[in-house]
């Protein structure tokens, strides 16, 4: 006779010891506020490492747009042999989109990753977001920002527990870039900082410890290079294509400054420069008119199909014929 199989709920077999040990060291659920391109990349990456991800967006329509894009990106990875269909299903199944902050309860870390229009907006909106997050999460939950040009001390200044706030800067494409910049604010405790480092290591990232400073390393250097490339172009020293080619072929960059600006978004580059300029007041950080003119015309880069270059609907650059003048 076949043995009879009984079915029961697993929860009653839980050991009490788990509650005592390790629980605070284990990451199971993370929150993301703002699921634009970088937010989506963080969501995919965290989910592919087995974490449950809850992302917050302002409307159901935005949630659907984020899911559509995540789905499209993962499909592309399958087509290019980077993933299997079952891995994709598992990644999507761990991601949830919500419009209410209350769903962030139970997260061990919440990362703010919103896009805002002006510097004034940026700080005020983020302060409000931090407060909203604090209202629903545990007092040990890490609240982090992915912003680099705004300092974490300022954003966390109105919280009851600013000591758990950290700046955690992923660079796009987050899954492929092996480093993450981690900056502590004035109030950040060692405990919170170490917890964030554990989280970053869980995602397989090498940590670059930085002192709180607008633009930290990556944004300050890249924004300045793009701005300087605009100056060279404006002075008529060389063509856009040749400036890009020089940096790529000469120094091994995968993209030239104009290609990079189009990828980042020219509006974002201007916001970075404005924030850095605001802090340091140096003229070299003042956004070039070449950037401003294009942003006024809504030529923001790949996202709008035109920036310094033109792009097709797949986001591929439409190559212009190169003239070498010889």
């Amino acid at each position, binding site marked *: 006779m076949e*043995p*009879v*199989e*009984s*079915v*029961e*709920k*697993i*929860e009653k*077999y*839980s*050991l009490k*010891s*788990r509650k005592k*040990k*390790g629980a605070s*060291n*284990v990451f*199971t659920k993370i929150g993301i506020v703002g699921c634009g391109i970088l937010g989506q990349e963080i969501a995919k990456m965290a989910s592919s490492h*087995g974490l*449950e991800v809850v992302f917050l967006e302002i409307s159901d329509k935005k949630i659907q747009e984020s899911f559509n894009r995540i789905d499209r990106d993962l499909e592309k*990875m399958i087509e*290019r*042999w*980077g*993933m*299997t269909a079952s891995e994709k299903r*598992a990644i999507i*199944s*761990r991601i949830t989109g919500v419009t209410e902050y209350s769903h962030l309860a139970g997260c061990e870390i919440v990362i703010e990753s919103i896009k805002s229009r002006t510097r004034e907006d940026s700080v005020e909106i983020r302060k409000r977001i931090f407060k909203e997050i604090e209202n629903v999460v545990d007092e040990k939950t890490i609240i982090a920002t992915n912003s680099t040009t705004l300092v974490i001390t300022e954003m966390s200044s109105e919280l009851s527990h600013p000591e758990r706030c950290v700046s955690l800067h992923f660079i796009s494409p987050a899954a492929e870039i092996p480093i993450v910049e981690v900056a502590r604010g004035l109030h950040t405790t060692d405990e919170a900082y170490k917890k964030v480092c554990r989280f970053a290591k869980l995602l397989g990232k090498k940590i670059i410890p930085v002192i709180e400073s607008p633009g930290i390393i990556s944004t300050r250097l890249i924004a300045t290079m793009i701005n300087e490339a605009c100056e060279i172009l404006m002075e008529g020293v060389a063509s856009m294509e040749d400036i890009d080619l020089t940096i790529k072929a000469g120094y091994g960059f995968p993209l030239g400054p104009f290609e990079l600006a189009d990828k980042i978004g020219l509006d974002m580059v201007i916001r970075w420069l404005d924030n850095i300029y605001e802090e340091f007041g140096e003229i070299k950080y003042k956004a070039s008119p070449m950037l401003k003119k294009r942003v006024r015309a809504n030529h923001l880069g790949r996202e709008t199909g035109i920036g310094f270059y033109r792009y097709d609907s797949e986001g591929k650059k439409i190559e212009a014929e190169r003239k070498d003048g010889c």
Partner: protein
Amino acid sequence: MRILVINSGSSSIKYQLFEMNNKEVLAKGIIEKIGMHGSFLKNTRNDGDVVKLTGEIVDHQAGIEYLLGVLISPNHGSIKSLEELDAIGHRVVHGGETFKSSQLLSDDVIKKIEECSELAPLHNPPNLRGIYAFKNLIPEIPQIGVFDTAFHQTMPDYAYMYAIPYSLYKKYGIRRYGFHGTSHTYVSRQACNFLKVDFSKKKIITCHLGNGASITAVCEGKSVDTSMGLTPVEGMIMGTRSGDLDLGVLTHIMNKEEIGVDSANSLINKHSGMLGISGISSDMREIEKAASEGHDRSNLALKMYEYRILKYIGAYAAVMDGVDIIVFTGGIGENDVNVRKNVCRKLHYLGLEFDEEVNSKTRGNEGEITKSSSKVKVLVIPTNEELVIAEDTMKIIKKK
């Protein structure tokens, strides 16, 4: 002495609880779909009690916590308290050149296993997740790691070296390591027990054919060559892995498809093998069904699969200057009568007399599938990697 054997995979954990005094399995089971919807733990006790526990198992630690909860539960448990557990024995896939035998998992050993993760990115990290979970939950109970690579550490250098610049071996430890060591150890010994012959005097070829597959030449008790290499991709055609592949093919594909190293790795590990050729499945049963219904690519996949096995058996008979015993094991080796038949029918030249009738009746049980007059014996031996892990664990605990 009671030993819990753990095989921690990416989304599942298999386990067996042994009473080592009589090598009895007190309980065994599996935790499936960890971190996914529909996760469950299924426990079977030796008195026939079977329970399926359903609910959310978010990660390996949660799964192991439930497993320990079940083992000590009054309804379905096998022990009264966790103090009755003497040790945990873990299957660890890659031990690199560092580990030639099983080890007590000290912090230093765990660190070295972490360092070996680069060599087996699909396997060592989930093995480690199991180890970390026990360390967090019951740190007082010793854990032992039993390495898939350890048995093959007896291979001579001319078998394990690749013909690439020697400096790369010195720099990164690039060489062939081989896998499924516990399985090859067990079935080669067990084959000799079955035939009542001396293990240390026989030339044996063991074919472990499961979703992953490898073939080993065991000469006078030692592994002298094996089909897997630095990683488990080399050698046989597997469920989703390519096995042997011209390196030029890979660089050519990377160029043509404009893909990087990660995607190339995924291509040969997850999209290739029987799945890649047949386009249907990585599961042998589904491929055989499709082939029987006239699906050409499934038929091709089967022919390629068997051909690759034949090539390796021929090669290993040559390197050992003959062969006395061939063993089939693993899910396919133990159950697939057609694969065994199609391979063995082409081994007349070795003096092998195949018994088709016995073969057709041997599925999942121990037995000889050659005639009594056959010079080369062919055996089916269900593998028992868990027992080897438990025995190694016991040896180390006793020494301690």
